[in-house]
């Protein structure tokens, strides 16, 4: 029964150990190399074509200018328009689910719906957006139709993160407020919401990330126009653009450059802009998320 404790692993086990360890490191190295290559290549191809003029002008065949200002503005418009809707809707749903919900069936229905929406591929939102918003509601291909379609897509993100942060608000805060005789809505407004702002912000950042990266939905609902109907420097113009302008956001512009015009220099330049935004959004989400976790 007595065995030595210094004999070591059998060759077979040693081989298994070494193989598995190698595979683990290889997988990690592969993924890191992939990202380095992706980013390096995009920057290498895109930066030479990136200029101030490219970012700040509208393209013009006559003047032989290429520019993605409309795409940038369209992206910003769509983001703002979408946030205007998902912020109250998402926060409202989350409040209902965490603070009010008493009917289990209603909760189950809402949760099933958000799960279903978050698993739905964007091409489905594109199809439904086209039928419902562009045609049935008569909005045509416009930024606002795109924004509405995106509301369907990004709503679950805001609901979920808000819900998570609402759950972290301690019971004692609520009691403290209720004990002072305030009503439930008053308690939510003065105690619960203020202490879950960072969760709501995180949700919005994540939603913005999805909007910036989305292309299929916007290509069909917001259109592929590379120009802007009117430049908006006032609120009125903003709304007119939303409804009148059929415009490509950055991702759609990239697709347009690459696939329709085979203008790869411009496509990579747009890709650089998108990468920078994606990186910024990741940082912002991490920052907001960390604040949320600290509590």
């Amino acid at each position: 029964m007595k065995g030595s404790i210094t004999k070591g692993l059998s060759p077979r086990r040693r081989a298994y150990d070494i193989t598995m360890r190698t595979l683990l490191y290889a997988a990690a190295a592969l993924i890191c190399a992939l990202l380095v290559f992706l980013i390096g290549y995009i920057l290498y191809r895109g930066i030479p074509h990136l200029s101030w003029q490219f970012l700040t002008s509208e393209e013009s065949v006559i003047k032989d200018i290429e520019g993605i200002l409309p795409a940038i503005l369209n992206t910003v418009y769509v983001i703002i328009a979408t946030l205007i809707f998902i912020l109250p809707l998402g926060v409202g749903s989350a409040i209902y689910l965490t603070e009010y919900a008493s009917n289990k069936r209603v909760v189950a229905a809402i949760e099933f719906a958000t799960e279903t929406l978050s698993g739905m591929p964007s091409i489905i939102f594109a199809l439904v957006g086209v039928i419902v918003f562009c045609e049935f509601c008569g909005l045509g291909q416009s930024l606002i139709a795109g924004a509405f379609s995106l509301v369907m897509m990004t709503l679950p993100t805001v609901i979920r993160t808000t819900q998570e942060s609402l759950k972290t608000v301690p019971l004692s805060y609520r009691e403290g407020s209720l004990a002072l005789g305030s009503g439930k809505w008053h308690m939510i407004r003065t105690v619960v919401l203020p202490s879950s702002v960072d969760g709501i912000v995180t949700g919005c950042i994540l939603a913005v990330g999805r909007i910036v990266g989305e292309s299929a939905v916007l290509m069909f609902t917001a259109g592929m126009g590379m120009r802007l109907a009117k430049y908006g420097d006032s609120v009125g113009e903003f709304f007119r653009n939303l409804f009148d302008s059929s415009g490509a956001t950055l991702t759609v512009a990239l697709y347009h450059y690459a696939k329709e015009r085979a203008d790869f220099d411009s496509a990579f330049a747009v890709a650089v802009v998108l990468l920078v935004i994606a990186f910024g959004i990741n940082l912002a989400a991490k920052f907001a998320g960390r604040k949320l976790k600290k509590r």
Partner: protein
Amino acid sequence: MSGNTIIEAKGLELWYGDNHALKGVSLEIPENRITALIGPSGCGKSTFLKTLNRMNDLVPGVRIEGQLLYNGEDIYGPDVDVTRLRKQIGMVFQKANPFPMSIYDNIAYGPRTHGVRSRAKLDDIVERSLRDAAIWDEVKDRLNKSALGLSGGQQQRLCIARALAVEPDVLLMDESTSALDPISTGKIEELALELKNRYTVVMVTHNMQQAVRVSDMTAFFLLGELVEFGDTERLFSHPRDKRTEDYITGRFG
């Protein structure tokens, strides 16, 4: 009373970071006996137990000095392979921790890991280990059912069977009955008494009656020091150290 020494500690020191958890512990654990380690929480008895099969290696920042010999070989020696060591010195934990697999696979896990492939041999080992752990009759009809469906006491005996399946010399039991009801505890104590004919058992226990009931030797730890070590009967009836006396008469801890 004591037979051959199987494990010998000489001036064993252990630190978790800055926390000096074992202070110059020296003792000889006899073969084919049950040795109980007692003492209040945080006294170092569990830490000592885990140095024997080097489970403390998993704790970051742990540092060990002194000597710990198993059959004359240094457990912390440079040539030691911990997988061999842990095969020789098995362990049963405080909380029953069967794998989320079938009962059969739980027992077969160890032998398979150590290279047993033949189904007939595995069948044999599974039956023998379950019999040795006195649980065969309770589970023989459901070997392919999940081990998580067993009761707490059954799970713990399954874990003992799993430890026996790799044919260890020494079985470490880390408060292995503390989460169980009295009947299950009794069964495991009986089992320990059976096992000592073939194995050396080292058990950490919170329960002094248990130490009296089952152990041959008892070591009393306090604040990282080994205060007293000796024959169980003698230690409980005529403690030599005042602190031992205070502890066993329930004056602290």
